[in-house]
């Protein structure tokens, strides 16, 4: 009987082809629009998080409990084998990169500028942030290097070139004074201005020596095997390391990005909500018409012996079939479109590009193909059609045969 009910439902929805086409088309375009919107949000957020994570913070960092508040060179951790092994043993951790960083004054000739001095392990850092690819002049650091990498704007302000030597002054660990001379090994040019203004890199060994903090670090920067595992990874680390260390996720370190994403997500939900309400009313009006014009026919079906539940099922199938037809066609078009856009982000130019760069993002519209980009729309439309189908079901259950036959 289910096959007959489905056959009846399918044929019924095509009785008024034009109306069904319009309803299906509204779902079709709605699904495409919402999928593209979700995909764009997904891609943009991923890119934002990726920027935060891959340019600098990693997904998780381990610090001295006071470091994040004080940012002091006195609040350091010792990344010895015991700590590293515990972190390695923790679930979901992929990469462990130590850093030591603090502010320093940099001087060349008559010019002096402040900047962030970051001590890194060149290989590991490159694996985490891809730092090497931003070297626009000179060369990248090697493990035993005594040179320095300077961001392009800072280099310009100091008027230094590759091969020049800059003098650095800062405060060392526990009140030691820190000073040193570092030949410029390379100039870094990041794709956005913020980092180009103050970033300088030397090797971790040189930095530990400079800050008089042998074997110490300000942070252990970690990556995880899957973005979804950030919070479980943090929980595991908290369990393993206890309160001796502060463990922070990327969004705790960069709440602004997190808030931007949440705010934008909210806007997206409102826009999609409006679109789906319109779609819902479109489907609803079609269903109302379908019931109204078949009132007598429905009465006849009950009169000749069709159980009301079975008839309600037919009408439920009709509503859901309209929804599914819209979903499937919308999905078939949006899937290749989204996949293409994921591989071909839309480049931006002019002022919009500058705004993107100011926010530390590459000037392009990125798209994502997360399963929820598609799944979300499918679930929402199915939800809408199920909600709408309550109306015909109620109508059938309340149907008075004699009244319907008279209509």
């Amino acid at each position, binding site marked *: *009987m289910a096959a007959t009910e489905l056959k009846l439902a399918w044929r019924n929805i095509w009785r008024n082809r034009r109306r069904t086409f319009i309803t299906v088309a509204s779902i079709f375009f709605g699904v495409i629009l919402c999928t593209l919107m979700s995909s764009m949000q997904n891609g943009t957020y991923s890119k934002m998080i990726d920027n935060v994570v891959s340019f600098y913070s990693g997904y998780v960092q381990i610090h001295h409990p006071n470091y994040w508040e004080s940012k002091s060179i006195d609040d350091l951790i010792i990344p010895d084998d015991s700590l590293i092994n515990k972190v390695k043993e923790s679930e979901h951790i992929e990469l462990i990169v130590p850093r030591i960083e603090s502010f320093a004054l940099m001087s060349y000739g008559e010019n002096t500028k402040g900047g962030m001095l970051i001590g890194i392990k060149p290989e590991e850092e490159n694996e985490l942030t891809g730092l090497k690819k931003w070297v626009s002049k000179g060369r990248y650091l090697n493990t035993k290097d005594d040179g320095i990498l300077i961001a392009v704007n800072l280099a310009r302000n100091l008027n230094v070139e590759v091969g020049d030597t800059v003098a650095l002054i800062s405060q060392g660990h526990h009140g030691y004074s820190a000073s040193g001379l570092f030949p410029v090994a390379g100039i870094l040019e990041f794709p956005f201005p913020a980092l180009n203004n103050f970033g300088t890199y030397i090797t971790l060994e040189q930095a530990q020596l400079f800050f008089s903090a042998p074997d110490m670090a300000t942070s252990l920067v970690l990556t995880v095997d899957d973005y979804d595992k950030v919070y479980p990874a943090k929980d595991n680390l908290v369990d393993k390391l206890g309160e001796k260390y502060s463990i922070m996720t990327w969004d705790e370190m960069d709440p602004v990005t997190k808030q931007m994403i949440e705010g934008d997500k909210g806007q997206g939900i409102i826009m999609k909500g409006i679109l789906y309400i319109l779609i819902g009313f479109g489907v609803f009006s079609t269903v109302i018409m379908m019931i109204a014009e078949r009132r007598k*026919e429905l009465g006849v079906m009950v*009169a*000749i*012996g069709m159980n*009301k539940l079975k008839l309600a099922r037919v009408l439920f199938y009709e509503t859901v079939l309209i929804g599914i037809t819209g979903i499937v066609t919308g999905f078939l078009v949006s899937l290749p479109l989204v996949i293409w856009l994921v591989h071909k982000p839309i480049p931006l130019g002019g002022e919009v590009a500058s705004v993107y760069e100011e926010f530390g993002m590459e000037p392009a519209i990125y798209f994502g193909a997360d399963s929820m980009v598609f799944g979300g729309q499918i679930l929402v439309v199915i939800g809408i059609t199920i909600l709408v189908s309550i109306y015909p079901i109620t109508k059938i259950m309340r149907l008075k045969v004699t009244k319907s036959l008279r209509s």
Partner: protein
Amino acid sequence: MNVIETNNLTKTYNDSEVEVHAVQGIDLKIEEGEFTAIVGPSGCGKTTFLNMVGGLDQPTSGTVRVGDTYVNELKSSELIDFRLHNIGFVFQAYNLIPVLTARENVEFIMQLQGKDKKEREQRASNLLTEVGLGDRINSRPSRLSGGQQQRVAVARALASKPKFVLADEPTANLDSKSTETLLDMMEKLNKEENITFIFSTHDMRVVNKARRVIKLEDGKIISDERKS
């Protein structure tokens, strides 16, 4: 043997401010194999009476017994099942399911009864052949004339092997030729297969064919004639 027996059957409508006594205490027995016409002017209670006999409407008082079942005591869901297995309906406006072919319309009832596919197909083909539409079994109602649609409706009414067929003004929308064909066919089914037919009608051609004519007026039987 009585197929239908009504006892003091009454229906009063209270929908408006004025009470309408559509059917007033009808006592009637209809035997198996009868070919009965219920006649009377518009508003005399023909359709209301048929609706109560067919379990489509509940009486205000009185009883309707079909075989051993008191129809007026059945619940709504039981009534649907009862109609499915006991009563065939033929409506004035044919009321076939427009998205199904003639054969599918006839099969539909049997499908609701849970009959298997082979039996359904066989019986649907036989019934449609019997009503003279063997060559139109795959046509949808919109492709059939009014007379042909009404013949499909008769085949559908018979598909469930009902105890009787209720036909509410079955010829009202048909031309003379179609009416004649339809009545001849129903008379043949009545005589050869002993199927009980009950009509409500204004149509004298139906009245002339009927072997029993019950006349209603103001919801009461004013005459009940049997022809020899």
